[in-house]
């Protein structure tokens, strides 16, 4: 499946058969279960192509003890620990309150065992959710999460198992905390993933020197925000090299705060772009990013976002024809 234009809105795209009105995807863990940011006057889920819900597990989870977040240079650490009410509650109580006319809603699935991933995926498969993202890259839980995502063999086993129980678009969220992300991507494609989310947070730590204690209750956390953008860009570029041959699109993410950032990810190979931490500073940032992308497409003569995907011109390589689609 590939990301292509479907209508006259230059920002719109087809992502694994879903129509996104904008390449912006609001990222898991930053926008609760879809309604939280609508508290803000001027914010609308319609400004995003899709909204990814908070990581959801089989059983309800209380999450980690405080402090769970901390500002760091050009970024922040978080160790929420997948606080969520459990998949059944999400499907039965929360999904019915969402307005699926506003945007596409994507579930974010996590678990401590492969069985749990499968159970949660199955519950979402039998729900109105538009797509399912498998989070094998959460750095903040003791079992599961990166324990799967850091090993291509384990990643593939999770993807394969989830693939068997859903026909909805399956997005695999890759960790930057691993040796060979390309090998991992290859294995996940073989196992049946339809798309990738690249990257999840980078593991980090903060210390309170006065008290000689870690700031974060969980000791370590995941780093997000502009601080990780160069890491994320490289990983998107690397995964794109593998995924484009199979027409597997990428949601590029990690530190995007402006249209310029978003464009860099698209050029590196992202069909859509994730916005998370940037909302915390500017809850109305989506409109600005959409405007900036629209302006860039116009100035550079691109009819759609899809035409810009993966147009990075590498030194020594023949200039890529402008206007070719991703994949």
């Amino acid at each position, binding site marked *: 499946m590939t990301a292509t234009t479907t209508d006259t809105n230059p920002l719109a795209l087809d992502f694994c058969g879903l129509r996104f009105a904008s390449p912006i995807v609001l990222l898991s*863990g930053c926008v609760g279960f879809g309604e939280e940011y609508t*508290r803000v006057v001027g914010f609308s889920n319609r400004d995003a192509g899709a909204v990814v819900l908070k990581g959801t597990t089989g059983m309800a989870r209380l999450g980690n003890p405080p402090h*769970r977040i901390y500002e760091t240079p050009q970024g922040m650490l978080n160790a929420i620990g997948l*606080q969520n009410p459990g998949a059944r509650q999400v499907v039965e109580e929360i999904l019915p*309150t969402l*307005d699926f006319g506003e945007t596409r809603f994507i579930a974010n699935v996590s678990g401590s065992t492969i069985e749990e991933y499968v159970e949660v995926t199955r519950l979402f498969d039998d729900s109105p959710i538009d797509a399912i993202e498998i989070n094998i890259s959460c750095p903040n839980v003791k079992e599961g999460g990166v324990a799967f995502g850091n090993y291509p063999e384990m990643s593939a086993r999770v993807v394969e198992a989830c693939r068997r129980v859903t026909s909805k678009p399956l997005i695999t969220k890759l960790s930057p905390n691993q040796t060979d992300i390309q090998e991992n991507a290859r294995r996940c494609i073989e196992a049946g993933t339809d798309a990738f989310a690249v990257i999840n947070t980078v593991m980090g730590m903060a210390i309170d020197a006065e008290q000689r204690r870690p700031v974060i209750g969980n000791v370590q956390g995941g780093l997000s925000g502009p601080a990780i953008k160069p890491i994320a860009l490289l990983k998107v570029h690397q995964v794109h090299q593998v995924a484009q041959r199979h027409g597997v699109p990428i949601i590029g993410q990690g530190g995007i705060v402006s249209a310029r950032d978003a464009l860099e990810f698209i050029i590196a190979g992202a069909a859509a772009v994730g916005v998370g931490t940037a909302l915390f500073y500017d809850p109305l940032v989506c409109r600005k990013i959409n405007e900036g992308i629209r302006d860039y497409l116009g100035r550079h003569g691109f009819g759609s976002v899809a035409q810009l995907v993966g147009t990075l011109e590498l030194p020594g390589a023949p200039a890529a024809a402008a206007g070719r689609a991703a994949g």
Partner: protein
Amino acid sequence: MTEAAAKDRPHRGTIFVEDAEVLDVEAWPAEQFIMRLVAPQCAAHARAGSFAHVTCDPALPMRRPLSLMRADPGSGVIEFLFKIVGDGLRLLAQRRPGETVSVMGPIGRPFTPTPGRRRPLLVGGGVGIPPMVFLAEALGPAARDGLVLMGSEVPFPFDPADSRLDVAHLPQGVVAAMPLMENLGVPSRLASLGGFPGCYPGYVTELGREWLRGLDAGALQEVEIFACGPTPMLKAAAALARDFGLPCQVSLEEYMACAVGGCAGCVVQVNTPAGPAMKRVCVDGPVFEAAAVDWGAMQH
């Protein structure tokens, strides 16, 4: 959105993002600052206990939550009192009149005084003073039979004056008061271990205990405690309420990222009938029933 859907979603469109012009920044000892800004929507909708999420400087990736000390719907002016802790507030204190900062607010569940409890005991410690000022001004004459107690280990961010309003059962010589409260006709007293004249030389909650001890059973029935300040003080306020069988609402603080309920970064552990739960300080609070908070699980 249809009208029916709007009714289902009363939370929508309740928090405003405004480019707020700084009117003035008043410096007090010990790196305390009072900042006044123009944010008409925030001013119009704020309640006692509400806070705002503020950009301190474009160089920082995060906003900072600040309790509202005052909000005047007429003039659109809001007021913060903050003490410099960390880089964010240090940069905020450097903002000059005429500059703008982005104010996102008002946010949070406010204080909700219980009808019939006509003797509110307001306890504010250090950076917890602002919501107590907001509440006292909102209650106005309704707080005249209550008492406002402020505690600080550094000089107060106002000039204390000897009280003209008598309060029974307080220790001899505890006469220092907050002039603002005097003007409202609401009795107030100050506590500090800093040796300031007229202040109670102990914890503010102990001064509260002295006052409660002097009340008869009938009067005690009419007391409700409201508190905001450092965690040890809030714990002591919760214990005081328990000892006297009083309702107590506390305003809590935690690091925040989104401040709209989206990240679950700001939680506190509370006890519910269904067992322990993690509640978000930004939207489930910042005001909580003291009896429900799991003080043992609290970070200092």
